[in-house]
């Protein structure tokens, strides 16, 4: 344990969830999330874990089961994908509104129709406004780390967290990854203790998710918004704490590149004062880094957004201030408008940054994002026109 193993992404996530030790897991299998829950069900069947594994008849039921279990004051887990997440939508909003500290994995996949089981990030974009913290992982190790941080955040902030991993690209691929043992995890993430009077207990009956009239509803929603915005600082702090505890234990040294910025919210890779900056989320960052390193000598920066909600406005503007050309790569689209990440980037840059911001839609429904596509984008972004472009080849 605590040493790199070659593991499938799904297995790595399942193993770390086993070590985090939730009390209740409920999920409904859906490609490409299936291997995660298959592994978790097998751990239970083989007596390697002692959580309750509750089989559900649909994602709506699975989400409702973990909502109910979490309301009784225990740590819970679920995982889903695409249509499954859409079926959960009503419960997803309820979980955030009831302030339950639930952690879920979303193996990002395209949404029907036409039916498609491959990766893009459209599914999670449909629930971006629900009040969950949305984290995006680039590789297996980051996914494993983010699950531990997610529980820490959820349980202290009373905000639910979704860890997003690109379907197939991460869930079905093999990479060296360190699975931390329970002892090390407990140093960072102690056992969950719910707040007295805030969970369902027959000795002390309460109602959660009660009716609220127009007099108070807006105030409660405003508080949820404010708490999400305030959580930006906590996410950063908890990320630092995580590194402080886990890095020495695993003898990991810091990044070599001096100019890189790494925080819990984003990662910037590239030179200071880069004139062209590419922004993206998830596994595509690896392809972009390689393409830029191997083909371009000039100053190109790469900004990875790790935390999409709450949106780290201040931190992003800090990175973008010197840029002349900004390309935003989206694996999702708000049909009839533009990519979801691009519209957020444009919104925060208005009046603050004069750079040209162009949106590129890539990799929808599992279309490969190759080095050639990245090269094309870097050439396109320096041209005059700034229309949203679909780059497929």
């Amino acid at each position, binding site marked *: 344990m605590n040493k790199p193993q070659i593991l499938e992404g799904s297995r790595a996530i399942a193993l770390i969830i086993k070590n985090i030790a939730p009390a209740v897991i409920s999920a409904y299998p859906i490609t490409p999330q299936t291997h995660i829950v298959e592994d978790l069900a097998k751990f239970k069947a083989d007596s390697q874990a002692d959580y309750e594994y509750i089989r559900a008849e649909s994602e709506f039921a699975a989400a409702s089961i973990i909502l109910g279990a979490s309301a009784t004051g225990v740590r819970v887990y679920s995982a889903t994908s695409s249509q499954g997440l859409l079926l959960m939508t009503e419960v997803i909003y309820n979980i955030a509104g*009831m*302030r339950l500290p639930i952690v879920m994995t979303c193996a990002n996949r395209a949404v029907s129709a036409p039916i498609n089981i491959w990766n893009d990030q459209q599914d999670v974009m449909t629930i971006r406004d629900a009040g969950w913290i949305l984290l995006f992982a680039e590789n297996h190790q980051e996914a494993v780390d983010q699950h531990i941080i997610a529980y820490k955040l959820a349980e202290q902030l*009373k905000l639910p967290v979704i860890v997003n991993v690109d379907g197939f690209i991460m869930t079905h691929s093999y990479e060296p990854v360190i699975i931390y043992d329970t002892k090390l995890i407990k140093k960072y993430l102690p056992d969950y203790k719910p707040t007295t*009077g*805030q*969970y369902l207990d027959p000795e002390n*009956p*309460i*109602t*959660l*998710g*009660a*009716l609220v*009239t127009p*007099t*108070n509803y807006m*105030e*409660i929603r405003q*508080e949820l918004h404010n*708490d999400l915005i305030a959580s930006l600082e906590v996410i950063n702090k908890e990320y630092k704490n995580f590194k402080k505890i886990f890095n020495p234990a695993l003898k990991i040294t810091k990044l070599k590149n001096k100019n890189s910025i790494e925080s819990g919210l984003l990662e910037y890779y590239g030179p200071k004062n880069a004139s062209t900056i590419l922004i993206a989320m998830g596994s595509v960052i690896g392809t972009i880094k390689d393409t830029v390193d191997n083909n371009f000598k000039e100053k190109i920066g790469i900004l990875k957004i790790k935390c999409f909600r709450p949106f780290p406005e201040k931190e992003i503007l800090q990175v973008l201030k010197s840029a002349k050309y900004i390309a935003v790569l989206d694996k999702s689209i708000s049909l009839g408008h533009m990519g979801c990440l691009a519209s957020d980037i444009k919104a925060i840059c208005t009046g603050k940054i004069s750079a040209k911001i162009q949106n590129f839609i890539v990799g929808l429904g599992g279309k490969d994002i190759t080095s050639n596509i990245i090269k094309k984008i870097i050439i396109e972004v320096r041209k005059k026109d700034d229309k949203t472009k679909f780059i497929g080849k």
Partner: protein
Amino acid sequence: MKINIAVKPCSTIVNKTGGWRTFKPNFSYDKCISCGLCSRICPEGCIVMKNLKQYEKLKPITDYNYCKGCGLCAEECPAKAVIMEKEEK
């Protein structure tokens, strides 16, 4: 989290639902045989059997803040001691 969204039962502060009522149950304590059926049958749980000074046995007291006037108490009362009357507002 400053606002407490976990609430105790029966602690609503603004939404008194008695205003939805069209018919109001009127209880005749002289006819009432103190069986307590109305209290048990009330879907709102707003009828409570209480000890009143002038009567020996327990008598039903209704919380009209929450009585919606469904009329179940009148329907089920074995002594026909509950009469539904149109409420003037």
